[in-house]
């Protein structure tokens, strides 16, 4: 009886903390959705109004009409998918080489790569842009995908995880005549599903949110991406926040759907990497 009561209290505490945590995470999200339904006066009211006076979807239709979001969505998807596949390939191969293979100049090369992380990405914008114009890649998908196909940060991150896998595993595989590539595919990747999933998520999000680069290398409306759609509602004199919020909802929906489908893998990945420490 006592123990049961103790369990109940423990559960209440547990769920209480979880609910508070969930509220904190969901709040901005809820705020975005509610704000997307407010009128301009409501969104600027002081003290702030939490619920709109009527739940109207007008802002969504206005926002949707203001820009070809369908097209932007397709473009964003294309860029995100191809870039992420590319990033995973380069990251995994490079990390394997740095963690496992021995070749002359390995340390120097890794140091050089790490040194490039010190250069702020803003500094690279103009030089990369010039390269794109020289290649005549302006207004193409490859201009948005190719320059970001390798990320030193992800390579470094994954190298650390790969390096933690005991040598014994590699040597045992070698004894069994397993080639490096097969070892990478069959053993290293499955063991490191966690960090690889994390890298995938980070990369998808950064693609989804990237703004300045896609804006620089595209000119036609047909090639623009989702984040560009948000700018439609900002001017020098003021912003139509209710429309920005509505557009933000539209922007976030695909990511939500992706999460629902990949939830299992994402949670698995995160917990796995957690256990492994």
């Amino acid at each position, binding site marked *: 009886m006592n123990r049961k009561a103790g369990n109940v209290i423990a559960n209440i505490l547990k769920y209480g903390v979880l609910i508070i945590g969930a509220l904190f995470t969901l709040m901005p999200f809820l705020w975005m959705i509610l704000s997307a339904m407010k009128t*301009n*006066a409501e969104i*600027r*009211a*002081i003290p702030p109004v939490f619920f709109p006076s009527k739940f109207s979807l007008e802002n969504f239709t206005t926002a949707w009409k*203001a820009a070809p979001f369908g097209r932007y969505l397709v473009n964003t998807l294309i860029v995100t998918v191809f870039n992420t596949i590319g990033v995973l390939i380069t990251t995994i191969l490079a990390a394997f080489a740095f963690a496992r293979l021995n070749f002359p100049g390995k340390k120097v090369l890794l140091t050089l790569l790490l040194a490039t992380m010190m250069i702020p990405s803003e500094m690279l*914008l*103009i030089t990369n*842009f*010039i390269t794109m*114009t*020289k290649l005549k890649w*302006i207004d193409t998908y490859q201009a948005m995908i190719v320059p970001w196909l390798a990320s030193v940060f992800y390579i470094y991150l994954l190298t650390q995880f790969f390096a933690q896998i005991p040598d014994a595993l590699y040597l045992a595989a070698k004894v069994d005549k397993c080639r490096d590539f097969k070892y990478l595919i069959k053993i290293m990747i499955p063991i490191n599903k966690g960090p690889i999933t994390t890298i995938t998520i980070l990369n998808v999000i950064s693609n989804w949110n990237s703004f*300045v680069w896609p*804006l*620089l290398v595209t*000119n*036609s*409306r047909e090639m623009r991406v989702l984040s*560009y759609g948000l*700018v*439609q*509602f*900002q*001017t*020098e*004199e*003021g*912003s*139509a926040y209710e429309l920005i919020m509505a557009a933000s909802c539209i922007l976030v929906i695909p990511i939500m759907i992706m999460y629902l489908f990949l939830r299992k893998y994402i949670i698995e990945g995160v917990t796995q990497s957690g256990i492994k420490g």
Partner: protein
Amino acid sequence: MSFRKTGAAILALVMAASLPVAAFAEEEKTIEPTEVTFWHGMSNTQEQVLTELTDRFNEENEYGITVKLVNQGNYGDLSTKLTASAVADELPDLAQAYNNWLTAYTDKIVPLDEFVENDFDDYEDLVEGYRAECEQLGFIGALPFNKSTYVYFYNKTMFDELGLEAPKTWEDMLAVGEKFMEEKEMPAFGVDDLAGFLEASLAQNECEYASDEGALFDNEAGLETLEYIMGLYNNGYARLIGEDDYFSSVISTQRIGGYIGSSTGVSYITADDFELGVAPLPTNKKAAANQAGTNIVMFAQDENQQAATWEYMKYLTSTEATTEWAMKTGYLPVRVSAFESDEYQSFMADDITATAAYSQVDAFFPAAMFEASNAVRTSVNTMFEEVVLDELEPEDALAEFVQIINEECDVE
């Protein structure tokens, strides 16, 4: 027979040679059909109106010129993109720009002096302040396009309640501020563009702002100006924008008596529960009002492109187009004849913002432009917030501003 032929030929030659140059030029003005790219930072209504005007040009021009509008985000994005494109030599034929974006690539700008001289309808008809701005580079580097000015927006209902009139002078402004503080415990003044406010206030006190030689207001007139400004802020008559982004939302929610902002910002003010008033900027020794908004700058390289771009520039700045543009967007016409047209006058009769803006048209001045003007603008904005937050005395505030400007200009 042969003599006659030769004679006729000679006669023809002589006649051809004696043709006036102008007629000759007119004959040569053939533009091959081409596409002109125009990069802009207009969105929403403004973009729609620009598209309407451009569609009409594309349809009606006799040369088969097609202008392609390319939205490049907001001004900040557009400026970044122009800078990058200038380095890569990939500039568009035409772009909206502020002069101070252009200092890094003035050599890429097509001077318009000859175009204006040979083929432009009454250059003097353009508003004087705008012309001065377009000539800041030492040549005509642009034509004015989406222009606006700063005005004082105020809550007329509150003013009436307190028995106040819109401030006409600096003293009025301080008196209004004091009254608001006493009766409502609320500031009556704010500015969206702090650096622009400092520059305008100095001009109102007949004092220069800055140039390549650094700050030019380290003197009596400059100190008077700072006394006025710090008097507003240190007494709580004025406030900084803080977390609110734009004063248009602060006035909409009735948390301030009034503010200085761009005349086009009026569309972001929601005056549902009060009456909005609009007044020209308060003056001191003389009237001076910032002009804002971008100009259109030509970068087209090829002669035919330039000619085609010029046709479009002429069209956008024509009395007819600028009147329509102004009435539909809230920007100001770029021509005096447009301001004075019956169409715009009757529009203005119902539009308090346009009325206030027009009443100070003779006081328009362009922001000072020099090599470091963009950097100075950013630093002054930051410094302005600092001196207000630190509640500095006018002398100290003056010293801080002078120092930061001189630093940006590399002056001792």
